[in-house]
């Protein structure tokens, strides 16, 4: 860092509001779409694991192994196939969410009390309707707890994608390093944290609205 350079030059922020907003939007897209895709994969897979317990351990192991691979390396493996595009960032991020979402879907379904399940069956629900109308709604709080963890870590990981040119706000992190200029780095880092925390708060709010019956129980994150 150059001598006399302040940590933050507020003027720079003022000059870049429009651009910052643009990258914030990109960042959110790159961070949250993978969570959505992850959920689309995890719900049926989790239901499968719940129904056939033997499927669960290998599935969970596979998800955990994927999760353990550093993002930078995983991006590089996909670059070959999807180029320096947003997809190259989103596919690995989607894979990462599975290690959190699948177990939470399974635990959520396991949290349905047996009497409730049996009562639903006794009242004549078909299996499909029982799962959709009874079991999944009851599983929502646990699933949302997983979504919160996945969303927060996904948003924070997007920045690494900047090394292949697709990092949302990560752009300012590499830019700041190249210019030896801390203001954009700090701004981007703080903005990413804020995005994560606001997303987390919105998910809590969404869960309360979705599952008014679970209020006060406070699903643990």
């Amino acid at each position, binding site marked *: *860092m150059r001598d006399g350079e302040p*940590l933050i030059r507020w003027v720079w922020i003022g000059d870049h509001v429009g651009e910052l907003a643009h990258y914030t939007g990109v960042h959110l897209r790159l961070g949250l779409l993978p969570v959505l895709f992850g959920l689309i994969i995890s719900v049926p897979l989790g239901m499968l694991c719940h129904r056939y317990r033997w499927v*669960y351990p290998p599935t*969970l192991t596979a998800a*955990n*192994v994927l*999760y*353990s*691979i*550093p*993002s*930078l*390396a*995983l991006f*590089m*493996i996909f*670059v*070959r*196939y999807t180029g320096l595009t947003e997809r190259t960032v989103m596919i690995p991020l989607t894979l990462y969410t599975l*290690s*959190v979402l699948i*177990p*939470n879907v*399974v*635990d959520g379904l396991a949290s349905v009390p047996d009497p409730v399940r049996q009562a639903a069956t006794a009242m004549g629900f078909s299996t499909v309707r029982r799962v959709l109308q009874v079991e999944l709604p009851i599983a929502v709080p646990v699933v949302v707890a997983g979504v919160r*963890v996945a969303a*927060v*870590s996904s*948003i*924070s*990981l*997007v*920045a*690494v994608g*900047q*090394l*292949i040119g697709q*990092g949302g706000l*990560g752009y300012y*992190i*590499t830019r*700041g*390093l190249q210019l*030896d200029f*801390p203001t954009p*780095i*700090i701004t*981007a*880092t703080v903005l*990413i*944290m804020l995005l*994560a*925390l606001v997303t*987390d708060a919105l998910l809590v709010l969404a869960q309360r609205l979705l599952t008014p019956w679970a209020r006060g129980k406070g699903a*643990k*994150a």
Partner: protein
Amino acid sequence: MNDLLNQIELVGEWLTSSAQWHGDDGIPHRLAEHLTYSGLSLLFATLIGLAFGLLVGHTGRGAFAVATVANLARAIPTFGLVVLVVTLAGLSTAPVLVALVALAVPPILINTFEGVRGVDPDTRDAAKGMGMTGWEVLLKVEVPMAMPLILLGLRVAAIQVVATATVAAYPGLGGLGRYIVDGLSRNDYQLVIGGSAVVVALALVVQAVFTALRRAVVSPGLRPVVAKS
């Protein structure tokens, strides 16, 4: 399929070229660097995270603070933090290590805390009622029962540290990430994919180590409980 074979061939060629096994840019040296960063930061993070996690879990005091710290810490972008540390403190190992420790403490802390707090009150009551002292309850009952979650926290922290140490090559540090970052800047795809392969291999080893550790350390009596990640 052909392409996959192609890539494997590329990696094989890179791995077997003798240049990769000597000197400062050789795999042994880079791996040693990577393991040093990761190992040291994980060690310090474990000491800090375990101590506070056990303390808070055992006494029940400070639970809210632990949860808040862990939630906030999860939101910190690792890449931003590492780059920021290098920008502010210059390119040396110590500040980056501090950043890695800071990233690794929360998962260890929160999982240790949750593990200890989650011990069935009946079990704790029985332990105390049989005449265990506070330390005995902690070491003979709470820690073994929290072990699945403690290991989970350690695993998550290890994964995060190994991944972040990779990214730390970008602002100029050593370690296995160097191959990827250098390969990207030189447009040397073989170097990128070769480096990635080594990083993946290391990640798989870490994963395997924790699986083995779990088998060795967690009592079979606790195994039916599937730990969350």
